[in-house]
């Protein structure tokens, strides 16, 4: 597919009630890049993701999709350009895997009653293949394991065929094999000229797979740049209050948290 628009935010500030959650955050997701948003609990990562997905209007600053402001766009148009996977993996009704993935086509439907078009079928099949769901496509989602469910919900977002993919902690609760497979898949998606943005806590994976990292603390940017520039022992101690060691084993970078700093 042709490179999509860049999703950017400039001087973004948000508050929930009277509490300021984000202040003056700059960020950009460029097609072809795999970007991570990291930071301690409560740093404002999920709020930033929701703002980037157009679910909340910015308090100050702006979120732009290409040269257009996100808040000016129709929701269905946003859905065709930005696919968002929330952190909670709720599925309220026991639909089959295939029907859940098909929901990703809703922003593309011409009329609401339209059945799956050939274009829809192709997108659904591609998403099922990418997430390796063919074997469980007819199973009800409510009966799947946490890892399978996470893959199904990502497949729904892939079926949207949006140039920007936002996933809030897509690997939380997954076993090491599925974490690795998911990062390989997301890297592959980014390599096909899409912008992929994930919130994550696994800094080793961020260092290994992501091009750029935004490190947030208390709603403000602590560091923003290439993964190797941002994930440093110094930044980690400032962001998380830990002493961490960066190591490299057989060419694979890893972050080892050594001790919590007491001061």
């Amino acid at each position, binding site marked *: 597919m042709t490179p999509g628009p860049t999703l950017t935010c400039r001087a973004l500030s948000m508050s929930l009630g009277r509490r300021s959650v984000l202040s003056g955050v700059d960020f950009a997701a460029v097609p072809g890049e795999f970007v991570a948003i990291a930071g301690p609990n409560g740093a404002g990562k999920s709020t930033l993701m929701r703002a980037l997905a157009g679910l909340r209007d910015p308090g100050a600053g702006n979120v732009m999709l290409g040269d257009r402001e996100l808040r000016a766009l129709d929701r269905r148009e946003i859905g065709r350009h930005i696919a968002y996977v*929330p952190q909670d993996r709720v599925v*309220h*009704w026991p639909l089959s895997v295939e029907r859940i993935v098909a*929901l990703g086509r809703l922003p593309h439907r011409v009329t*609401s009653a339209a059945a799956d078009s050939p274009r829809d079928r192709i997108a659904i099949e591609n998403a099922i293949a990418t997430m390796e769901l063919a074997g469980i496509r007819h199973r009800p989602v409510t009966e799947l394991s946490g890892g399978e469910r996470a893959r199904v919900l990502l497949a729904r977002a892939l079926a949207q065929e949006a140039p920007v993919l936002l996933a809030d902690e897509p690997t939380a609760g997954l076993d090491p094999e599925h974490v690795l497979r998911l990062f390989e898949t997301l890297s592959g998606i980014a390599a096909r000229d899409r912008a992929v943005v994930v919130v994550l806590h696994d800094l080793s994976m961020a260092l290994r797979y992501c091009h750029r990292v935004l490190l947030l603390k208390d709603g403000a940017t602590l560091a923003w740049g290439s993964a190797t520039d941002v994930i440093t022992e110094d930044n980690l101690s400032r962001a998380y209050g830990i002493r961490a060691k960066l190591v490299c084993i057989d060419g694979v970078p890893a972050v080892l948290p050594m001790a919590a700093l007491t001061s």
Partner: protein
Amino acid sequence: MTHGKDLALAGLAIAAFLLSLAIGADGAGLPGSADAARTILFEVRLPRAILGFLVGAALGLAGAVLQGYLRNPLAEPGILGISGGAALGAVIAIHTGIAGVAAAALPFAGLVGAGIATLLLVMLAGAGSSSVTLILAGVAISSLSGALTSLALNLAANPFAVSEMLYWLMGSLSDRSLVHVWIAAPAILLGIVFLLSTATALDALTLGEDAAQNLGVDPGRLRWQVVGGTALAVGAATAVTGAISFVGLVVPHVLRPWLGNEPGRLLVPSLFGGAALVLLADVGLRLISPLGELRLGVLTALVGAPFFLWLVLRLRRDLAP
């Protein structure tokens, strides 16, 4: 295919409609004289069959929409308190004697009651708030209108007024004329259009409110479609027939194992299923209780309550580890 199932249910509803025209309180068929036959068919049975169809359709559809919108299989059309408001309006009309002024007075008072309940609901629950506040506001309005209905019964001038109100509250299609049809049909049909337009949004809500918004759902607009559609369809239905319980709860549940769990997929079938259920119950009522002493709402509750119990048991089994 699935559309075949829609057609089958539509066929069932139409068959029930024709059955309702064919079978009267005095058994099947029509009297010999052409004039009498025409009067009975067009002034007695036709209004009753039309209302049965519309009221059943409104209840079945509203039940399916509310279960999908609230993502709760135990939701039913009365949960928003609108039918309680309609019932209160009608009871007040009987209490004050307004109901005796004209045939249209009682259902009109019911519509006013439904309208006031809807305004209260919108004020209490707000536009963009969560479904929990909507349910809580609905429960509060139901309790309030229930209490005021009891007060009206309590303060009734004489036992006849009490029995008239009680009979009305039990829900019935008997002695309804074309006047009732003209009052209820426009509101019910408009409400049905609103409710049917929620189908894809309800499907998207399966993944929660954030994901649904990402799939193009406007939560504020959806709330208006659900509340407005329920107010029109269920408010008008209750205003002309009283409370016919359990139809809106039961119909989507009966259809789910057959049609799947996609909430949007259930809307049209629930509309026809509700119409068929109310019409068949009403026909059955005329056969087992030709003098009209057994009320439709009582029959649907008698059949519906055990079903509800079974539902709870099944839910408990499904949720068991």
